[in-house]
Structures are given as structure tokens and as C-alpha cells.
């Protein structure tokens, strides 16, 4: 019997599909057709139908988080490494806010093509949680 580490827990249910080519789960307003992310829950959720969003998009804007966000709510470890965040435009659907990964800060450029991946977010106590991120399209990962 091979002892494999248990897969990381998603940071929240219903945000993305857990598969080799993951997709974000948005919500389409049943009346207006407006698409939002994440798909609303509770009473508001009744007005939306869940839909899978495009996996690829383009960078709409970005910045680099240079200081450690306050905990709570931030889950990351006390030892802080700056990370990039951005808004990613999924054509004709919606512009989503996301972490950016596998890219040098000075290579970030509005309009660059990106694709969705799942990113383990380590914690000081407890196992890493799985969040979503976008990376430059076509990056190879062994």
C-alpha cells in the first residue's frame, strides 16, 4: 500500500473544479444574463445558475502585494513573500480577481495571455489549502 499525502482542501467549496485543467465556477443571473464570480450563495444564489468559466484569459490589471496582509483574515504563513495579484478578463464572460503565479513581477504586462491553475497556499499550522491562480499560458511544469 502506497502512502500518498491527502490532497489539499479547497479554500472554499464551489469556487473551482478540481481537475487537471481546472475551471472557475461563476454564476449567471437568470434574468439579466450578467455573469459574476463567485456564484452567489443563499437567497441571492437563487437568482443565479452556476456556470463553468473560460480557463484562459488576458491580464486586465495587476499589482504586487509587497507587505503581509493582516491575519485574520489572511491565512498565509508568518514568513511573507510578496505575491502578484491581478484582474483577468475572460472574454465575453467576466473579469475575475486572482493571484498570479509562475511569472516574474517585471514580466507582468496588461494584455498578456493567462490560464487558470490551482495553487497550494501554505499555512503555519495545518495543511496547505488550495486556491486558484492564473499563470502565463504555455508555461511547462514538470
Amino acid at each position: 500500500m502506497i502512502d500518498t499525502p491527502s490532497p489539499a482542501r479547497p479554500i472554499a467549496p464551489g469556487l473551482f473544479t478540481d481537475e487537471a485543467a481546472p475551471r472557475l465556477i461563476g454564476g449567471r443571473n437568470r434574468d439579466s444574463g450578467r455573469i459574476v464570480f463567485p456564484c452567489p450563495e443563499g437567497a441571492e444564489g437563487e437568482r443565479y445558475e452556476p456556470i463553468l468559466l473560460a480557463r484562459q484569459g488576458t491580464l486586465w490589471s495587476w499589482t504586487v502585494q509587497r507587505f503581509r496582509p493582516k491575519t485574520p483574515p489572511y491565512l498565509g504563513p508568518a514568513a511573507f513573500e510578496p505575491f502578484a495579484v491581478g484582474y483577468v478578463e475572460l472574454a465575453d464572460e467576466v473579469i475575475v480577481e486572482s493571484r498570479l503565479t509562475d511569472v516574474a513581477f517585471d514580466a507582468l504586462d496588461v494584455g498578456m495571455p493567462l490560464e487558470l491553475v490551482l495553487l497550494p497556499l501554505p499555512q503555519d499550522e495545518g495543511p496547505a489549502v488550495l486556491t486558484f491562480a492564473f499563470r502565463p499560458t504555455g508555461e511547462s511544469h514538470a
Partner: protein
Amino acid sequence: MSDVCIVGIGIHRFGRTPDLSGLDMGVAAARTALGDAGVAWPDIQFAYGGSDASGNADTMVSRLGMTGIQFINVKNGCATGGSALASASSAIRAGEYDLGLAVGFDKHPRGAFDPRPAEWGLPEWYGEAGLMLTTQFFAMKLTRYMALHGISTRTLGRVAEKSFLNAVHAPHAWRREPVDIETILSAQMVSDPLTKYMFCSPAEGAVALVLASEAKARQLGGPMIRLKAVAMRTRPAGSFEVFAPSLDVARGGSATTNASLAAFTAAGIGPEDIDVAQLQDTEVGAEIMHMAENGFCADGEQEEWLAEGRTRIGGRLPVNTDGGCIACGEPIGASGLRQVYENVVQLRGDGGGRQVPNDPKTAYSHVYGAPGVSAVAILSR
């Protein structure tokens, strides 16, 4: 309808005052404003006031005097002061009262604001993943704008340099030392492209204004500073606001654009008629973008405006003549009224080393904040 006049102004210095509460500062500002107007608290018929984090404004009646007047608390985020002013103005314009007070104060702890997701109707993961920071929003709105409209980082530096330079001459400002542009540009990066000198800090302070009907103002005999228009608006569809996990692909206008248009329409003048402006500058990019959103220039023209110094004291349109939020810091409840205070100082010709030359006749103030609120006031004399 009667014009509404600002007949008294009072400010408690912005920055940090460890021994005073927010309410203490509010009371001090109110007393200064009453003295400036030459009236006493029992003359005041009504008040609107508020703070974001320092409690209920109406509790100041126990300090100023329990005259039994109508005192309505306002809590409207960054538009708290602007909303108090709009409400007080309406009460006088409607003929209900002819002398009232608008007051705003606040006192925030050091460091960035630390909002919790649930208070904003957002899921917990949004904060857990490190996405719930106001600084990220400001930086990303600016990054997009710079890419679309050709704004350089040097222009960002020029805005901060101007703010600190103006504040040297503003006794109520917090940071009153000049900072040269190279220091600003090479300082620690907070959220790219913004360095630490390009952001305002949460702060403390208070402002009070005494408002009067035209007839009452004439009777008091001071300079006639008229509140020609005040408009407060919330965000339209397709606007880009703080704490948005997603945005519509179809982009829309902003609360600022709508408040600005409403105020200009009510005042019957346009951006070209304004002699001095105070524009919300939570960070330097906000001042740049708000120049266009308020109609003072086209998108992208800010590059030329800043290079030529058009927004400096003595330029074609001096902007943030007391150093704005960059140099004064941002006590949320007081910030919008500080802008109006500064405009009254300028229209009275009392600006000293920061006085806008050539006898300014019209002044514009604009406040903006989460989650997409804006208030604009236009003054004239």
C-alpha cells in the same frame, strides 16, 4: 430658493494627537467654527455630523450645550462629511432652518485599514487568500489607467512632491516637510506602482462648518462664501470599486463622474470655470484619475498637466492646495469636510504661503470612497 453660505469654519489639526479622542477633536473644531462665524452654540438650530470609527457625533451636545436641537448622525463611509454637508445644505435651502452645523471627525489606529469580509458581504476565502486589501484596488485601478492612457511613474512622483510642498504652508496638515521626487520614486514599494510616499495614511482630525441662509449670512456680515452645489452619488453599473472579486466585462462610469456632472449642472458652470480644486487623493493615482473623472482634463492629458506644473499653486488649476490626503492623512469622517474648509480658506484669500493667486472666485471639492460613493461641492463668492 436661498443660496446656502458657509459662514464659519473650524479644523482640528490632522495627524496624531494621542491625548485626544475623535470626539474631543470634533468639539474643538465646532467651537472654532462657531467663533469664526461670530455665533454661539445656542444660535445653532440644527446639526448633521458623523465619524466612521469614533462614535456618535450627537454626543457632543453634552459638551457644547444641551440646547435640544435636532442633531442627526451621519455614517456614510468616506462620504460621511460630504453627506453631512449635503443634508445640512438641503435643510437650509428648503427654508426649514437658517443656521446650522456640519461636523466630521475620526481617529484611526496606525497601519492599513483591516476590514473583515463578512462586514462587506464577501466570503471569508476572499480575505484568507490575501485579496482583501484597499491598497491592491488602488494600485490595480491605476495600473490599468497608466497602461491605457500613457501615464508615467514620474507623473505619480510629481503629484506626491506637489502635495508635500503645499502642506509646508498648511498649519492643519500632518506631514509638512518637502520630499523630493527621487526620494518618492525610490522609496519602499507598497503595492506596485505605488511607493510609501504615494499613499495617504489613516489619521486623526476634525472639521466643522457653520452654514447659513443668504439672509442670515448677510446679517452676520462676514465674507459671502456660497455653496453653489453639493451632490452625493453611489456607484453605477460597470464601475470599478474596492473589494470586487469580479467585474463586468462591459465597463461603466463612476460615482465620481455622476456626482461631478450633477454638481456642475446644479451650479450652472463647467470645469473650465473652476479656479481651485481639492480632489480625493487616497493615493497619487487617484488624484490623477479624478482630474479626468471630474471633467478637468481628458484621459492621458495629466502627463502634460503635471510636467508643466498646471496643478501647482499658481498653475492653471491648483489641486489639493493643503497637500490633500497624501499630506494630511485620512480621518474618514473628516476628510471630505477638510477639502471644503480648504476651499473656504482659499476663497477668503487666507491661504498664506499656499494662497492661490489672482483672487480665486470658484472652488471645487470631491471626495470618493468605498464601496463606490462620491460627493462633490462647488463654492463661489
